[in-house]
Each structure stands twice: as structure tokens, then as C-alpha cells.
């Protein structure tokens, strides 16, 4: 396979997704409004230090925005019957998966960067480690865009089913990742935070902004890279199976 053709096919899928899916209602609701409203719900009326809370909010924003386009794309295309046209173009299943991941990652990266810029401007947020901040943006957006693509992989042509399924997976992760409930208050359930990839992203943001991350940034980054590989491989296995079964 010619690598240039492959990269081109990934970029073409990404371009198509950016043109079509960024403006869909469910992406705007679950990718932008939902985390923002959750933030307001938990923050307003409580005596929380906004600077301390901000890394968690950034993590949640990146988590929701990056993982919101992926679950929509494949079910939507199967419902509209454009998926068959897409597969018959010069693309392979890997280009479709990487294109879906890239478009989700770009969406998450841009939105969350704007939120960070606005936060820095208004709240005069500190920045302890810019390299870790960039790593957090890159790895976090790719990891959760991969999660979105994995969630969209089961054979269905009903986008609302996948959106419900994705929230079923995403919402519990919010509560075990130390965003709203401090890890120290999770008690005997504290171990669950280690199972959530969001924990490591929030920890990276803490290291970058306040300098008080719990784990080493190398460990956080390594976990996120492994998560990206697991989610992307899982999506490929499922979508390849769908091509075999004709679903």
C-alpha cells in the first residue's frame, strides 16, 4: 500500500467529517453544552477554588468534546447509506477509523484550547509546565476521539442508540476521575479512578497548570498512549468484522 495514498485517504475522511458532523445537534449538545452545564451545576453555589478546579474542567471539556463526533459518524452514514459509498472510494477501513479519530481530536483540541485561553485570560491561570500542557491536549484529544470511534463501531444505523450508549460509558467515567468528587472522598472506591483514562488526563492538566499532579507525567502519557492504541485497535477489529458480516 502506497503510504502517500493512505495518508491522503485519512485526510479526505477527516475533511468530510469536519464539513458534515461538526454542526450536528448532538455534537453541539454533548460536546459543548453538556460539559459546560455540568461545570456550572457543580461549581455555582459552592466555595471551590476555580484555579484548582480548572484542570478537572479542562479534562472534562476535552473528554466530552473529543468523544462527541465519533459516536455519530458511522451510525449516521449507515443510516443515510453513504457508508457504502465511502468504503467504495479509495479508502481502507484504517483510513476511515483514523479519519474519524482525527476529526474528533481536532474538534476537542480546538474547543478545549479556546476554553483554556479564555480561562487563562479571565482567571489569570498559572502555567507550570507548557510541554506537559501540549502533551495533555494532544494525547487527551486523540485518546477520547478514539473512544468515540470505538463506541460508534458496533453495527447499527441508529445514531441515537449509540449516543445513549456513549453517555452510558462516559458519564460514570466523570465521577470516578476526580473531577467533581475529590479522589480522597471516594473511600473504598478510590481504586476505580485508576481504571479511568480521564484520571490520567486530568492529572496531566494538574501537573501542567498547578504543578501538583499525583502521578508522573510520563506515566500519565504512557497510559494515554496505550489507551489510544487499545481503543483504535478495538474499533478496527469491530469494523473489520462488520465488513465481513456485511453489517
Amino acid at each position: 500500500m502506497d503510504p502517500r495514498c493512505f495518508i491522503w485517504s485519512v485526510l479526505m475522511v477527516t475533511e468530510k467529517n469536519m464539513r458534515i458532523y461538526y454542526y450536528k445537534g448532538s455534537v453541539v449538545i454533548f460536546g459543548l453544552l453538556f460539559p459546560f452545564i455540568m461545570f456550572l451545576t457543580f461549581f455555582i453555589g459552592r466555595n471551590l477554588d476555580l484555579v484548582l478546579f480548572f484542570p478537572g474542567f479542562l479534562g472534562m471539556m476535552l473528554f466530552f468534546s473529543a468523544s462527541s463526533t465519533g459516536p455519530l459518524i458511522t451510525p449516521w452514514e449507515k443510516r443515510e447509506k453513504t457508508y457504502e459509498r465511502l468504503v467504495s472510494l479509495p479508502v481502507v477501513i484504517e483510513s476511515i477509523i483514523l479519519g474519524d479519530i482525527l476529526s474528533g481530536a481536532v474538534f476537542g483540541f480546538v474547543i478545549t484550547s479556546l476554553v483554556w485561553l479564555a480561562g487563562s485570560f479571565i482567571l489569570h491561570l498559572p502555567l507550570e509546565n507548557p510541554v506537559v500542557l501540549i502533551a495533555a491536549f494532544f494525547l487527551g484529544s486523540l485518546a477520547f476521539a478514539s473512544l468515540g470511534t470505538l463506541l460508534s463501531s458496533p453495527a447499527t444505523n441508529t445514531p441515537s442508540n449509540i449516543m445513549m450508549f456513549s453517555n452510558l460509558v462516559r458519564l460514570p467515567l466523570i465521577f470516578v476521575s476526580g473531577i467533581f468528587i475529590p479522589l480522597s472522598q471516594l473511600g473504598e472506591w478510590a481504586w476505580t479512578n485508576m481504571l479511568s483514562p480521564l484520571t490520567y488526563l486530568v492529572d496531566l492538566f494538574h501537573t501542567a497548570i498547578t504543578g501538583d499532579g499525583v502521578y508522573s507525567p510520563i506515566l500519565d502519557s504512557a497510559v494515554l498512549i496505550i489507551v489510544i492504541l487499545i481503543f483504535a485497535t478495538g474499533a478496527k477489529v469491530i469494523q473489520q468484522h462488520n465488513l465481513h458480516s456485511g453489517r
Partner: protein
Amino acid sequence: MDVIETRNLYKSFGPVPAVADVSITVKKGEIFGFLGQNGAGKTTTIRMLTGVLIPDSGTARICGIDIQQDPLEAKRHMGVIPENGTVYADLTAEKNILWTAKCYGMDRASREEKAREILIRLGLESRKDDLVRTFSKGMRQRISIACAIVHSPPVLFLDEPTTGLDVISRRLVIDTVRRMNREGSTVLITTHNIEEANALCSAISIIHKGRIIASDSPERIRTQYDTSGFIEISFEQKIQGRTLMAGGISRVEPIGDKWRVYTDDADRTVKDLAKIAEQNHLKIVSVATSTPSLEQAFIEMTEAT
């Protein structure tokens, strides 16, 4: 040169195979018809040929490139109009074509020129900036065709391209297929419309219950399976069918206000019918002869298996 070649393609979605050992070869420059009833295995075969479905076994080569071994390269040689001819409803007509052309690696100048030319040819120039979701089924099918031919592919696959279209859109699809073929594309078209296949194709394969049951030119298949033709005749007066029975006539049946007379020797029967009309003082309103049809051959073949 064989442009499309399949060897023992096999696909099953359960205990019954959807496609079993399908081997076809399509030569350069042919319009090849893949005929079959609904559910016969046409779409499953075309989906395996275009890389949309992975076969359980067997191989498919497009311009000598194995679609499973090198899908990117194989797909660059083909244009596909899938069943229902869907395109992106949230993009404009022109954006659909331009994006597809970009996928095939065309440079900006050629894709813009080609898109403009095709939009004019398909009568969609004035709607190029409208979202496809506002289009009728026929217009969407035209955009689907435009996307499939924008890169002038050596091989064009069409899956039931005229199903559900009005007469004008249907004619446009058929004209485009002929034009692409004249310009050098080899065409594989699936259809259950036998007359369409008869009018378009230089070679056909008939698939039934997932297996190829005949492969040849439409003319040879037609004559191979049925040697009888018929004459349709109508009279001003009402008559009984038995009045028309004469030598060489196998059966007579009423069709609307006409009589259909089945015969092995049309020339002799026409003369006999003229004599019968003369003797019985009948005034002939119309008479038409018909040679054995591909449809008849198709029915005989599929009923026999």
C-alpha cells in the same frame, strides 16, 4: 484483456450461501450485465467486487489488481454507483463531486473543470450550490453518477441504477453509461430489468440463488433457451381464439384487446392469419411480430433451477 475477473467468489450470511463460486470475466470495453431476481446475489457480488464486503473465499481483480490485496490501488481504478445512489445530503451538489474527485487525487484545476462539465451535462448546473438534501431522488442519482464518473474511471460499477427513477432520469442514466463506455470505461451493471440489460449490454451473466446459471451475449442466451416467437394481432370484430388456430401455431391467448399467437414460424403464421381474416371477413386493426425474448429465456432458466 480481462478488466474484471472473479474466481470462485463465495459469501454466506448463514447456512445458505448468498453467493457461491461466482466466476466472471469482463473484457475491456464491454458493458456487462449482471442479471437476477431480487435476492439472487447481484448486490452481494458487486459489494465484494468494490471492496465493501469481504468474501469468505475466492478472489476479485480489477484491472489486474486484487481488491483484497491492494484495495486502495484497485479502488482508484473504479467508479461506483451503489444501490440507492446515496450521496452526502449535508453537502452541496458541487461539494459532493469536488470532495469525491479530491479522494481520487485529482488536482484542484482538473476537479473544478470536470465538476463543472459534469454538472452541465447532467443538467444540475443551476442547483450546484444547493444542499443535496433538497433534491429529488432522480437528482440525487444524477449526483451519485457524477461522483462515480468524475475521475473518468477505467471500470464503472452500477448497482440497480435505474430502480425507482422517472423516465427522464432513467434515460439520462442509460445515456451516461453508454457515453462512459464510448469514452473507454468498462461497465458492470446489475439489474433485474431484462429489457434494460438487453438494450445496453454486450455480455450478461444470469445469477440465481447465488450461482451463475448462464453467461453469454444476450442474443445467444435468448435463442438458446427459447426458439418460439409470437405474433400479436387485433381485429375490429370480436372473435373466438379457436378461429385463429392454424398449422405451426402452438397456442393462442387473449392479451387485452389483442390475441397473442405463439409460433415457431412467424412468416408462415402471418400469411395464415391474413388468409383466416380474409375467409372470415375480419378487419385487421394491428399486427406485430415478436422474436423470442430474453425475458422468456430468463424465466425458463430461473424456473428450471
